[in-house]
């Protein structure tokens, strides 16, 4: 067993777990944060994407030993009590999800992109979603939503009708 202490969604959390525990398991099993999903457990699908110290990571690939003292943001930490985060709002507006299983990972990848690059091109968005598999939607409405959210985050008006 190892003891681990880290910050998750702005709160300090600790747990004692076997050393082979992944960050994803820690979040889901110990902290009951089940928003991050397990789609493959080997880094191929992106359903488990969270942001660690500003970087998007596949939490299924990160072991507890690597997260000591770090700052983790998960899908549950994105909205505050009264407001959805712009990305979430725009995903809702465009109906970007279907079954939703890939959604938390996609939204966290998009958040990391927009933090880094506030005005991404369609190509840059496609690239940033390169590690996130979605089998339902065909990605189109996600890209529209991410574009829209980038406008809002830059303080511009979002194109709420479909772009081409």
């Amino acid at each position, binding site marked *: 067993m190892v003891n681990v202490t880290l910050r998750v969604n702005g709160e300090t959390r600790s747990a004692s777990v*076997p050393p*082979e525990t992944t960050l994803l398991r820690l979040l*889901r099993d110990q902290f009951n*944060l*089940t*928003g*991050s*999903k*397990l*789609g*493959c*457990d*080997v880094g*191929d*699908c992106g*359903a488990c994407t969270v942001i660690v110290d500003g970087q998007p990571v596949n939490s299924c690939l990160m072991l507890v030993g690597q997260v000591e003292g770090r700052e983790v943001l*998960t*899908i*549950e930490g*994105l*909205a505050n009590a009264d407001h*959805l985060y712009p990305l*979430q709002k725009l*995903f*809702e*507006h*465009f*109906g970007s*999800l*279907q*079954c*939703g*299983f*890939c*959604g*938390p990972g996609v*939204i966290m990848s998009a958040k990391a992109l927009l933090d880094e690059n506030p005005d991404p091109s369609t190509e840059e*968005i*496609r*690239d940033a*979603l*390169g590690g*996130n*598999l*979605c*089998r*339902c*939607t*065909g*990605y*189109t*409405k*996600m*890209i529209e939503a991410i574009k829209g959210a980038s406008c809002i985050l830059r303080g511009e008006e979002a194109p709420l009708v479909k772009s*081409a």
Partner: protein
Amino acid sequence: MTTRFIGKPLKRKEDPRLIQGLSHYVDDLNLAGMHYAAFLRSPYAHANIRSVDLSKARRASGVVLALSGTDIDGAIQPVPCAAQIPDMKSGARPVLARDRVRFVGESVAVLVASDRYAARDALDLIEVDYEPLTPIVNPEKAIAKGAAPLHAGQKDNVAFKWELEGGDLKAAFKAADKVIKQRIVNQRVIPVPIETRGVLADYQPGEGQLTVWSSTQIPHLLRTQIASMLNFPETLVHVVAPEVGGGFGTKLNVYPEEAIVAYLAIQLGKPVKWSESRRENFQATIHGRDQIDDLEVAIKRDGTILGLRCRVIADLGAYYQLLTPLIPTLTGLMMTGCYKIPAARMEITGVFTNKMATDAYRGAGRPEATYLIERVMDLVAAELKKGPVEVRRKNFPQPKDFPYATPTGLIYDSGDYQKALDMALKVADYKKLRQEQAKLRKEERYMGIGISTYVEICGMGPSSAMPAGGWESATVRVEPTGRVSVMTGSSPHGQGQETTFAQMGADVLGIDPSQVQVVHGDTSVVPYGIGTFGSRATAVGGTAVYKSLQKVKEKLARIAAHIVGSDPERMVFANRKIFAKQSPKKSVAFGQAVSAAYVAKTLPAEMEPGLEATTFFEPTNFTYPFGTHICVVEIDAETGDVKLVRYVAVDDCGNVINPLLVEGQVQGGIVQSVGQALFEEAVYDEQGQLITGELMDYALPRASDMCWIEAARTVTPTPVNPLGVKGVGEAGTIAATPALAGAVADALAPFGVHHVDMPFKREKIWQVMSKNRRRVQ
């Protein structure tokens, strides 16, 4: 009814929980004292099991139970198959293999431990003594003379023969100016929902109640099957499909794990959970397609198609799942596509091989049909040196021909194929595309334009044509507070029925969609229903909802008319009020009329109290959506890389409840189909090992593989249901592969090539180009 919400792009009611990570899929559910199941799976495609030794595993720390096929012999019935074909051989799958394994990934033993890791670790302690047998992987070799039968007591590996013939085929081939022959292969693909399967079961010995949460498209059918497989009273089985992370047909099935996990929970008196790993999902969740089609087409010089003959080898895998034998027969029904072909015949040989079963993967038999007939149209065009548009137009039935009877025995409900084609040509600016292509060819750049005009069979369907009931149920209950509950048997997994059915409720009852709650997936709350598949949720499930809404509305109109002293026939529902059409002052608040139904003091004489109605809607026919997809590719002459440049989709799914959701279905379907066309392929090696058994090796389309999809619609309502809706869940998957195949063949036309089998991987295309280059120059 005034439609304030139907037809509008309302935001999805499902989304707030999904975008915040607050919804619960099976693996997100945890119960106190929960244990974990793990399955030991065969590493061999074909082997006799000499013995299974569980003694070490049973002694491992944390393990509470370990069972082999012998241990549960007789306690759990084999996997059910609902599809029946005359004279089909038995291909029943035992829930755990006992004497023999027949595909890699077949379960041999199961164990339960107190935690997930202990369960997985203990699998390594199980000792199985296998006697490997020669695997039979290739379906043509499987039915060749001398091939050993997979199933004991059978003389060969032919599971069934099925044939269908309509029209005078002999005469058609006699009258033909030309006969074209071609073999096409529709490769095996793997559906890969991003949520794998999962089961959680809990048994309460006191009450005798068994609850099973499963990631399923068919909670009620699953309940019936679990009860039958375990010989357990159905009344005490409660099945819940919580949030389901994509199905695509894979979860329209009953799997060994569902029955076994329920059985383990009963045996242990503890909750037991099983979460499928991605590898297990590749190996042991149903696959799709896998047909070899030998075609002969009788044509006239002017492009008229007189007759079509198809011989199909359908690779079924080792066993039947729920609908395995049925799927290729749907290809037969739809083989003439959207063309007036007077005579057609299909002979299907269903074949057992040492692979996972094929079954209903999004489109289920119809993508194969559309692929086949659209390839035919392109081959005819190439043979006669005509354009692909011209040949298609030539053979379309006209709008006045509907309802149109096909030689395969179907009645297409409504259609205007011409109109969708015209619109697609316009959106794509087809003429200009051809000019551009000619220009690029001079520069030795290979652009290809592919066209697919399709019709599909949706709204499944009349019970007479379905293996196990084609109706759907819905209950509408207006609660005493005026909130409306809609209970639907069409349990969704991403389609958005919570939104569309709320739109319908709001319009029928003159209230806001926020007042309508759609409940699904829970067999204790929802009346017996069928499920979501075959693009049926809106056409069949939605119609059941609509009819129940009408019944409740009629009752409310009578109550309101009674209160204000007016004629029930003339009551109007709008803005949370019910009022007389001629004198709107004669009005009752919606809530007041509802409350009257429950307080029951001011009801019309002889009216029952309460406000609830149930409908079991039985459609009279399938529905037949159609459309035209056009796709443009460019092939890199150096590498063979196929790049998707443009994609235009014009679909006609009849009336639309929510265009946002329809767009999403179309886009998602297209991308799935692009996956099959460009890179997806389930590859088993000669030993029957699944080489493409991880996401690393089985390429799914990613965001960067796609171009923008330009979508438009024509609207031809169906007369089959009062909503005029046809269904759209599978359109994209059905239409897109032939569009891509057509585009690739068109790009390769300068090389004298008119057909290449999918997937269009760069090595394959490069080889085709280099092999044919010299011949052409």
